[in-house]
């Protein structure tokens, strides 16, 4: 995938009027999360890392967002989100059971751990989970499709699009407090917004977003 916003780094705006102190604290803490488990055991962590690679691949040279660590920290804090489909067990149990079940499915299908599947087999298994086709006893009464939609993909995708790497990739302006935006019409960008490529003009504009 070509770089749609060449050279745009939303973090260049960190010390501009678009960020305030509370936002800097929040994003700094997010970027400081260490990519290792604090709550999941080693086997579950390996499975989760592989699942994150499948659901939210992160090619390119930019530092990767530690997605598995974000999921792990949510589990460590038992951070709920206000509702739970009756077909799912609580957060920790859902993740623990789901990750174990993916390993069971991989072993049954390929004789290997989920984390050791090649990319095609891994993504094939994720697709089968999404379609609700995985039904080994390891899932218990938890439908694999509901686990995929409400937990696995939901949590991993949300974690990625809360990360500045993702914001830079999609040309999103990121935090906007106290300075908001001025130009609202189609095709108009404020100088502190990402410029769409291709071309050197966009790259030059993107090099300036942190200086206005």
């Amino acid at each position, binding site marked *: *995938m070509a770089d*749609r916003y060449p050279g745009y780094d939303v973090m260049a705006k960190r010390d501009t009027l*678009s*960020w*305030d102190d*509370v*936002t800097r*604290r*929040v*994003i700094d*803490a*997010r970027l400081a999360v260490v990519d290792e488990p604090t709550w999941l055991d080693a086997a579950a962590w390996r499975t989760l890392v592989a699942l994150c690679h*499948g*659901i*939210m*691949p992160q090619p390119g040279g930019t530092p990767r967002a530690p997605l598995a660590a974000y999921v792990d920290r949510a589990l460590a804090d038992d951070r*709920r*989100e*206000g*509702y*739970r*489909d*009756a*077909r799912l067990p*609580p957060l920790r149990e859902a993740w623990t059971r789901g990750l174990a079940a993916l390993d069971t499915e991989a072993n049954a299908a390929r004789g290997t751990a989920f984390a050791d599947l090649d990319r095609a087999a891994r*993504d094939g298994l*994720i697709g089968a989970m*999404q379609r609700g086709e995985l039904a080994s006893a390891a899932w218990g009464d938890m439908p694999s499709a509901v686990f995929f*939609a409400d937990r696995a*993909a*939901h949590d991993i*995708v*949300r974690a990625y*699009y*809360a990360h500045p790497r*993702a*914001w830079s*990739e*999609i*040309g*999103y*302006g*990121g*935090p*906007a*407090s*106290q*300075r*908001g*935006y001025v*130009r*609202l*019409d*189609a*095709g*108009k*960008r404020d100088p502190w*917004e*990402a410029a*769409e490529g291709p071309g050197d003009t966009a790259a030059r504009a993107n090099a300036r977003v942190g200086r206005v």
Partner: protein
Amino acid sequence: MTPIEEQSPRAAEGRAPDVFRSGGWTPMRCHPDGDTVDFAIVGTGAGGGTLAARLAEMGFSVVAFDAGPFFRPLDDFASDEEAQSQLYWNDERITDGADPIKLGGNNSGKAVGGSTVHFAMVSLRFRPEHFKSRSRLGYGADWPVDWREMWGYYDQVERALSISGPLTYPWGPPRPRYPYRPHPMNACAQTMAVGCDRVGIGWSPMPLATVSAPRGKSPPCVQRGFCRFGCSTNAKQSALTVWIPRALAAGAEIRDLAMVGRVETDASGRATGVHYHRDGAWRFQKARHVVAAGYAIETPRLLLNSASPQHPGGLANSSGLVGRNLMTQPNQGVWGWMADEIRFNKAPPNLCVSEHWNYCDDKDFPGGYTLMSQGPLPQEWAGVQLGARGLWGEALRREMVEYNHQVGIKVVGEGLPSEDNCVTLTDEVDRYGLRIPRVTYGWTPGDKALIEHSLQQMEAVLDAAGATRLFRQTDDTNHLNGTARMGDDPTTSVVDPDGRTWDVPNLWVCDGSIFPTTGGVNPSLTIQAMALRTADRIAAKAARGEL
């Protein structure tokens, strides 16, 4: 961020946070638990916050409780979707039924100010006929309320919130000019307007509760676009910035991080006060009157959790209707792609509105609906791509790169009441030991017809505007109402036309729970108007010695 459980209450010992000053405080009158206050209000959002302000201004002694923290937006609100999940009701609730609804950030708040702290500020009046939809339009239920009376209360709320809106509003009976000029429409709103013109339905700039010019301590909106994640500049006119400061100035006490678990009743069946959890301990506040204002899930939960020998099925539940007739509003969307850069994250998210299908009765479905332009931020937008299209992996990353070119419209529909849609209690308990709610939902056949009509209409508008790659988001809902219905018959309603429960003469409900129908618009303006009306009814009864 400090988890809420580890935070300490801020409003205490004679002072409360001043929301308009960094680190600021404002004096607050405080009552010992043993004082019998006139009103204990459970909840401080659009219903409870508004009522607390008015009752205090009328001279009643008031203590209002909120389970969530008392934020200072200038200090506490990050410009960030993820971090601002601190504003939602994140405690567990179980959802089931044919169409389980998503809760949390979608439709709940847990903060002083309630969900108005993160509402989208859409401030619309009901169509007058929607207060009598059963007798006038043949579906739903009638409110025991005259629309002309409501029109007067709408006037008051619009002035109190300094609504920024168009010079003339295209639908409904005449209304006064909005106090502040409308906000400029962003590119997504302009796209919707072009499409509406081409398919021949009306549109208007949206009336919004965020100021377009300075007002008191509120600066004008700077078009950050984070409205649904808390306004960090205080341009937004929420309960937190409008009604709570008024309540405090008039002598009300606000207790933050105070979870009310039970309304106590005596042998005669009257309410005597509320049990609440604060600072690690259960306490009891005596009160002459109790008002449940926790919105359509926590209000019935509180009434059901307050069962007593005199009220074995839960308080105010002789009709069996507490928790019944839960209504959400269809919130389906259609999304598309434009060759131009749109950048719909800029400015408030819903800047263009069409109420055409609230006011047009030439249609083959019950209920009405509003259409409005959209501006989801990246986390929500990724959730749309995942939920509506099932995208993940490389396919998701490819689509997300189109973010700045997306446009979208969503419906806010009049979901119909059904007794099968309900809030009940599970056997699971929360960290306070209180039974948690189960929320059961399924669309009625009428809802499904409305949803399909609205999806076709949104597709037509976006197509006419030149958007391509259209796709439907068919599964979303928003706003919750019902569960303690107002009516004029004690066998078919929970509260009387004044908002007082039929069964307990000193127990009131003041929030969206009392709605017999949802109307085809966002409910916050109507909840606030009803709160002002309830305050007037209470004052009138007090003057007659009937309270």
